[in-house]
């Protein structure tokens, strides 16, 4: 327990707060993802003492996961890919002048998600890992497929076909490049820049950022976000009213975090989708419960993703992979023997997560008013400036001009999609999950070689997922038919 309290020393609290504030600002910038922040910190943390490096990284991790919600809510451009559902549910409310309340609810939901993530991390180590280990290639591939199918149904409820087409095109785009099993080049047209695939950060920035810039500026009188911040702290009874969504989203976030390879993107989309089904509401018209579903899952995912990272040495998500790398630079190898080789480290991380959560909460509330004021500037001034950030965000990951050109191409494509009624969200998710789905499903096919269909269907998790995917399609078609009938 001494290690646990060590994290609460004033110096480390200060470091953690600085990390959280920096993370929030980073996450709020379009395209600057949590993964990128953590990856950049791997090198920077080498010069720090081990405890400082861990605390600082946890602060940045927690802060940047929330930060994406700021720009998603106020300028309709998600700072990070996992903030897309928050954008869908929060931006319509911000347009009605409730930006402050949406952000306040996001922060509170994030904090609750973090707490649940921490508590479940501490209490459910053996149980959660047992479930996660049931997810082999087949199940992970199906989970990715479900993520895209559900996002397609959710974003255009009365025309799910367009949502699915968008998601499927995203999956196809993700298949560009050298594939991971045989090393064969697919759809690269001889372009060397495409060998490593289509990077999802420029795609995300193009589809959301540039599309929004083109669309909003082309309006003779663009929409305005009210400067009035209004009530920021959500009423206590509002949070109490959403207790079911909070519990459900926490489990979704934790479980998707525990499954290796499924990051916060899957968590937020699945939680948002499941939330809509349970509440029978349409969050995309603007709904605080949608924001709660997305943000709780997003943040509970942190604890979930840290679980396999700390106990098995297998990263639950890309940012935790960077966390593992940073720790290995300090000579700490995570894995099943962590309690023996690094006694007290787990408790120190628990303490660090608590500090990071509180620091995120305080810093985020302090940043609401300036954020609303900044993002309520006339769109004609704000959006060209955002274009600069889009450029930097696209360029930062690989330092390649090609990524900027790609971002422009996808911006134009997104603009056409928006004008033709195709939703953008499913395409982004498709691009993010495409490779994961491709490699896992093909790997599963190799494993299943020689097995009968009944042997494949005897896997309970996989079969449950197949049924869920089929039900998602059927319910989408049924809803469309009912709408047409009406």
């Amino acid at each position: 327990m001494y290690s646990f309290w060590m994290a609460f020393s004033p110096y480390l609290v200060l470091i953690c707060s600085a990390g959280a504030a920096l993370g929030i600002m980073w996450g709020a910038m379009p395209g600057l993802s949590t993964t990128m922040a953590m990856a950049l910190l791997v090198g920077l943390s080498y010069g720090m003492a081990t405890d400082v490096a861990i605390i600082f990284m946890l602060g940045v991790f927690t802060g940047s996961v929330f930060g994406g919600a700021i720009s998603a809510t106020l300028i309709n451009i998600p700072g990070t890919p996992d903030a897309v559902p928050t954008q869908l549910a929060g931006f319509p409310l911000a347009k009605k002048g409730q930006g402050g309340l949406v952000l306040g609810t996001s922060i509170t939901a994030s904090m609750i998600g973090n707490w649940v993530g921490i508590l479940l991390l501490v209490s459910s180590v053996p149980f959660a890992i047992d479930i996660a280990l049931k997810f082999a290639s087949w199940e992970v591939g199906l989970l990715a497929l479900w993520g895209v199918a559900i996002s397609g149904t959710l974003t255009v409820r009365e025309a799910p076909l367009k949502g699915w087409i968008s998601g499927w095109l995203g999956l196809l785009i993700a298949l560009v490049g050298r594939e991971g099993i045989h090393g064969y080049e697919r759809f690269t047209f001889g372009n060397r820049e495409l060998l490593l695939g289509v990077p999802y950060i420029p795609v995300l920035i193009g589809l959301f950022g540039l599309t929004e810039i083109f669309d909003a500026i082309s309006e003779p009188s663009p929409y305005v976000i009210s400067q009035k911040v209004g009530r920021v702290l959500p009423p206590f009874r509002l949070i109490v009213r959403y207790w079911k969504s909070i519990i459900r989203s926490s489990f979704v976030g934790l479980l998707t975090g525990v499954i290796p390879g499924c990051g916060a993107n899957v968590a937020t989309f699945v939680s948002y989708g499941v939330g809509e089904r349970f509440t029978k509401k349409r969050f995309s018209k603007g709904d605080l419960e949608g924001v709660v579903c997305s943000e709780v899952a997003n943040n509970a995912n942190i604890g979930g993703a840290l679980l396999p990272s700390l106990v098995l040495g297998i990263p639950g998500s890309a940012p935790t992979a960077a966390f593992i790398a940073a720790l290995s630079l300090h000579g700490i190898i995570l894995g099943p023997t962590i309690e023996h080789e690094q006694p007290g480290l787990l408790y120190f991380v628990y303490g660090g997560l608590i500090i990071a959560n509180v620091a995120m909460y305080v810093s985020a509330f302090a940043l609401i008013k300036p954020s609303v004021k900044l993002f309520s500037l006339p769109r004609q001034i704000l959006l060209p400036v955002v274009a600069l950030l889009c450029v930097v965000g696209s360029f930062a990951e690989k330092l390649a001009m090609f990524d900027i050109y790609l971002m422009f191409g996808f911006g134009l494509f997104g603009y056409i999609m928006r004008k033709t009624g195709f939703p953008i969200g499913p395409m982004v998710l498709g691009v993010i999950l495409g490779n994961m789905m491709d490699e896992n499903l093909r790997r599963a096919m190799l494993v299943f070689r020689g097995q009968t269909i009944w042997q494949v269907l005897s896997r309970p998790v996989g079969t449950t997922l197949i049924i869920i995917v089929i039900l998602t399609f059927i319910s989408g078609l049924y809803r469309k038919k009912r709408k047409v009938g009406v």
Partner: protein
Amino acid sequence: MDDHIDKQDSKKDAVAEIDFISSIILIVFSLGIILWSLKMPRPGGWSSAPGLIPLFLSTCTFFMGLALLFSSIRNKGFSQLITKCRGFSFSQSISSTKAKRSLWIILLTAFYMFVLLGRVPFELASFIYLASTLYVFWRKGGLLKIILISTLLPFITSALFRVLFVVFMPGESVFDWLLSYLR
């Protein structure tokens, strides 16, 4: 009430026309991918073939395209499109304020990203982009404000990313020179 119904009908017609064109593009595109996937090598048989998932996805896309096509034909998308094509005038279609504004912002952004960035320092390229965009879309701000914003913001962005976040800018940056000088 009638006016509202007319508006809804015309919107539905416009969507059906667009859906008709989109579905044709989708069908052709997915057929292309199906053929391409079938031509891909299968070193370990179909189960791990690089073309397996593209084939599955493009076949699904093909059927989704067909469904979209039938739905648009059912909503008179094809006949509406033919009627519209007969009375189509390019000059008229780009004469609306919205179309002009769209064209301006797309062209200015393309010029910034394809011509300026990487060829001139980031701050100068961004100054030109911001000044021209603000001049076109925010003329009421006045020339002085436009120049002030366009000069300051690229430097602030550059300083924030290059110095604080240690992220490089596309093309050279004033801060690259400054940092190398300080070292």
